[in-house]
Each structure stands twice: as structure tokens, then as C-alpha cells.
């Protein structure tokens, strides 16, 4: 599982925020466009790309994209 690829997939869930904004350290819930609906898109993306079923708490307890990447990695 590649971190840069995960960040790119994560960024694709946003319509208005430029992809260049996203790094592993990005605190995604502080992005203006972030919403619970984008949270659902992230869950769907992780299911589709990595075949991992995230819980709501996995998203809520993650601050950075790296945090979420580590959770997905641990469930692979």
C-alpha cells in the first residue's frame, strides 16, 4: 500500500479543494470543504481501492490523512 497513492485517492473525494493542498500531514477535518458526506466518500473509496471496511470512529479518531492511512494499513 502506497502512501502517496492513498493521499491522491483521498484528495479525489473533494470537488473544490485543490489536490496540491493534500499531504500525509494534512489535518483533513480542518479543510473548509470537509463534511460528513465527504467522510462517506472516503469510506467508499477505502472499500473500493483497498477492500477495507472502515468504521465511523476510524474516520472520527483520525486527525491527519496519515492517521487514516495507518488504520487502513493495519486492516489489510
Amino acid at each position, binding site marked *: 500500500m502506497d502512501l502517496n497513492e492513498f493521499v491522491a485517492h483521498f484528495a479525489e473525494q473533494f470537488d473544490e479543494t485543490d489536490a496540491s493542498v493534500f499531504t500525509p500531514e494534512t489535518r483533513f477535518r480542518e479543510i473548509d470543504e470537509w463534511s460528513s458526506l465527504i467522510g*462517506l466518500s472516503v469510506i467508499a473509496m477505502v472499500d473500493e481501492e483497498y477492500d477495507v471496511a472502515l468504521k465511523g470512529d476510524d474516520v472520527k479518531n483520525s486527525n491527519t490523512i496519515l492517521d487514516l492511512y495507518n488504520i487502513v494499513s493495519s486492516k489489510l
Partner: protein
Amino acid sequence: MAFLDIKNVRIAGIAAGVPKNIASNLHPEPEDNVSADYAPEDFVATTGVEERRISTTLCASDLCYGAAEKLIADLGWDKQEIEGILFVSQTPDYILPATACILQDRLGLSKECYATDMSIGCSGWLYGLSSLAALVSTGGIKKALLMVGDAKARVKGKRNPLFGSSGTVTALEYAEGAKGLQFHMGTDGSGFDAIITPDGGARNQITPESFNEYEFEGKMVHRLQSRMKGMDVFSFGITTAPKSIKKLAEHFGFDYQDADYLVLHQANMKMNDFIVKKLKFDTAKVPTSLRYFANTNGASIPVTIVTQLKDKLNGIAKFLCCGFGVGLSWGSLYFESDPEMVISQLVEMDDSETSAYVV
């Protein structure tokens, strides 16, 4: 693996009743519990729910009763031949007795009638159908009615803009030699609190504090109202529904892509779109009733069949259905409708319809 192959039974007909009264999510009223985070247009675009049928007076059993009278007339059934009612709902008339008992008398059915309720949610049509079909397949009961619906809430409170009211009836008939119905059923009780009404059962008895509002996922609710962990339920739905459908097809040896219709529980558009995409299923064969009837809980599959497919069916149609939700619980079904299967015109009921079964 809970695979069920229930032969010698056919679905004779399906009907649905809804309140006449329409609420619009484009013009929410103060009693609609709409999140302040979204404009009405965005809410509609994302959830796919524009309108819903609601009533301050009609109970689920009233809507099922209206649908049953219509369906029995359309089928030309003699009421004395109907020997079973299974009522599936989260909003029964009373805690006791079972609403199915009231419906036996209200419909004027014989006292030689098997009647009981089942408490389950969005997988309710599948659970109800598998249970009642199994009884009918014995031949001990020749004709029976599955009633699935939810309407007026058990406790007053703000209205959830995702949900609509309905009461459906699916008529089952013993038919020797019929191919019947094939199911895959499943349960994961570790997710018991993903959707839950915390108070009012024996675990947490009702107290004055039960009515105190608190915030849950951005909405104010009280403990006699259901609450949902939205992300958990979404994740559950998109992973479990496709797997269940694939298991069903694999076990019974058919290609699910050959189905004429995939009728999913109408949870929300985003979830269903994703499930359909994962299955790589042709979207033209996936009817939806979300836009005008919202999420009608366990009744959403028959509501979709009645409102979207009534005029399209002719001859034999291959149905693939999947319901999933509170429990957590799910079920998938494959059946072939025969040309004689009746789908009744949607029954729209006025708020003034009353029940005599009031104390």
C-alpha cells in the same frame, strides 16, 4: 450460511398504502429535523429524497389495512381462506397485543388464523417473507399476508427528513411445484448500537429523562427516538449488500447480472449508487422510490415494486432483492414473478381514516 430454498409457494400479489399528505424536503418545516449544515437543495441532491409521505394520524397498521383490502379485492381472494398474517414493523399500534391480531379482526379474517408480529427494520421484508413463505410452503396454510410498514412514530418529536410512511402487503399462496423463493440471510449483532432506540425497552426503562434532548451526529434527539451512526451504517451497507447478493447467486448457481430487476432497500441514493457500482449492475434495471417516498424502512422494496414497476411487468420477471439495516441484519432474495402476480395501484390514504381498535 443461512441459505433458504423455499419451494411450493408463490408471491400472488403486492400492494402498498401511503398517506396522501406530502412533505417536501425542498421546503422543510420547523418540525423537520434537517441538519443546519446543508441547504435544502444540497440535502435533496445528496440523499435523493425530495418528498415523503407522512401523517400525524395514520399508523403503519392503518396503511397495511388499506393496502390489504385493495390487494384482496384485486386478487379476488375469499377472506375466509386467508389463514396467516405476519406484521413486520418498528411502529406497532401497541406494545401489547401484537398488531397482527388486530389486523385479523379488522380485515374480517377467519379465527383459524396464524398471526404474529416481528420486530426488525430495513431487512424486514426479507425476514418476514422467508418466515411466512416457509409456513405457507408446508401447505398447512394456503393463503397468507405479509404486512410490512412503518408510519406514525411511537413518541412525538421532530421528523427525520430521510424517512417516509408506508404500509405494504405481500400475498403468499401455496402452489405445488412452484420454484418458490431463494434467500441468503445474515446478522451481525456486534453492530447493535449502529441504529438504536435506547430507552423504552426493559434494558433502559422509560423515565422523565428519556425525553431530554441531546445531540447525536449533529441532530437533537431524545432517548425514545432512534439514532444512527451514519458512517458505520454506510460502511456496513456498501460492504454487506454486494457480498450477500454474490453469495446468493453463487450458492444457487445463477448469474445475478441476468436478473431483470435489482430492488435494493431504499436507504439513500449515495449508498445504493455505490452498491450498484460495486456489483457492476446495469443501472437501468435498478428502480428507486427514494425521490418521492423516501426511506420507507422494511417496506421500501415492496413500495419500490408497486410504485415503479406496476406497469412494466409482463410475463415472467427475475427479481433480485436485498434489504439491510438495524440489527445489524440483512437478507437477499431471488424469485421469478409469474404472469398472474398482481400489483395493485398505490393506495393513498386520507388522515381522516380511523381505526376502531382504540382504548
